């Protein structure tokens, strides 16, 4: 049965048809929610909520886009809402991490330069990045996910998270350095064989 047929049945209240749609989309939606929230429990809760809302709103789905796309947008909006209320909660508690104090410390500049090309299978690197994302601070992970996975512009990210665009720009830069640092530390981003290694000190 095609997605369209399943959707049509689900719109009439056919829960079995909807179950098939859930199975077809669960990994994609869960991945999004996991990476946005940063932990499996919140990710699973948010993903489940997305499907529940999709079920409830199904009769008003017009079919202008595919169901998967519509569902993904719904989940994305839910994640943004979650991030915003998370931010409000954290702001209210006035918890700031040193990572996020813009301009407080110079960016962590490594001494050595490594060229990772050809070092790891792309697939292993992707997997390592997926895991490293979850080790980032919330602030770093969120901007990186919105930029790299969701493809939002700096302006869009600023609007989503209620930040200044300049803050988004510098935070993304720091997040990228932090990600790289995690990968290097975990040994997932190895230096090339010595013949190709570039070790230089950066200019002051």
């Amino acid at each position, binding site marked *: 049965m095609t997605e369209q047929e399943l959707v049509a049945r689900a*719109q009439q209240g056919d829960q079995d048809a909807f179950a098939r749609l859930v199975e077809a989309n669960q990994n994609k939606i869960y991945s999004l929610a996991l990476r946005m929230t940063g932990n499996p429990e919140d990710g699973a809760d948010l993903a489940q909520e997305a499907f529940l809302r999709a079920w409830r709103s199904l009769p008003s789905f017009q079919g202008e886009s595919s169901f998967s796309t519509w569902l993904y947008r719904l989940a994305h909006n839910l994640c943004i809402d979650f991030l915003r209320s998370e931010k409000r909660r954290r702001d209210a508690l006035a918890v700031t991490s040193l990572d996020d104090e813009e301009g407080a410390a110079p960016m962590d500049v490594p001494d050595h330069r490594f060229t990772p090309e050809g070092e790891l299978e792309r697939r292993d690197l992707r997997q390592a990045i997926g895991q490293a994302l979850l080790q980032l601070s919330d602030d770093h992970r969120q901007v990186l996910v919105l930029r790299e996975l969701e493809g939002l512009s700096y302006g869009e990210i600023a609007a989503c998270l209620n930040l200044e665009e300049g803050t988004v720009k510098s935070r993304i830069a720091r997040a990228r350095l932090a990600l790289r640092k995690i990968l290097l530390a975990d040994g997932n981003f190895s230096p090339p064989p010595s013949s190709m290694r570039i070790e230089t000190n950066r200019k002051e």
Partner: protein
Amino acid sequence: MRSCDEITELLSAALDGALTGEEQAVLDEHLADCPACSALFADLRSLQAAAGELEEVPAPAGFAARVMDAVAADPTQEGPAKVIPFPQRRKKNRAAIPWKGWTATAAVVGVVLLGASLLPRGGNTSAEMMDNALIRQQSACSTTADSANGENFSASDSVANGMPILASEEMAETQQEAPGALSGELDGSAGTSMEQATCCGTIILTGESLPEVLNAYEADVDDRGRRTYLVSAEDFFSCLEALKMAEDIPFTYESADPGAAFGWVIVEASAAP
């Protein structure tokens, strides 16, 4: 000559295509002379490419089953519901109905009958049917609130009466579909009175800061990011007072039936990305 420290942010922006011509020139000049930053740039480019192709993480075991459990427990679907406004009779007997599992936030006094297509299948008790009908009435109200927002919202619109308004053709059609099913099962066995359900009003507001009281509620979010809250009358009026006192949150307020037990608060999405 810029320090490597300053260059790093330019590197990152370059990955996102967010450099001005001037910034690009500064970056190029630095990179021409700095193998260290050039190598860092290459690193970050690799990471960006790989990050853009992340594989899906499998949902945890039993995820789909849990979703379907939740769906089965709450099988309501919103959307273009066929709704039949309850005929304007008032019965003298106004016995309180012991709602099973009804939440405190919406002690609604009446029920709207629904078209046959939305009646629960199988043999439900009349109490369950009324529970379901009540839940659908809320949903119908919500849906109507949504569509009412599309046009200029005014107190005379359907939401003010808590009753969705249908074109008369539609009404005739749906009434034809299920006259027997409705009147037979609900009126007869339940022996209760039903009257028009009303809401005490609707507040529509924009902006990020919300009255505290809304934090206790779960909003229904549509895919334009607009949130709809169903709140108790008490909380509704607290919210109204808070908004009046805040003075800097734009909102509109339409009152309906001040005696009703619940109200709607709709939060428009702020300027979207």
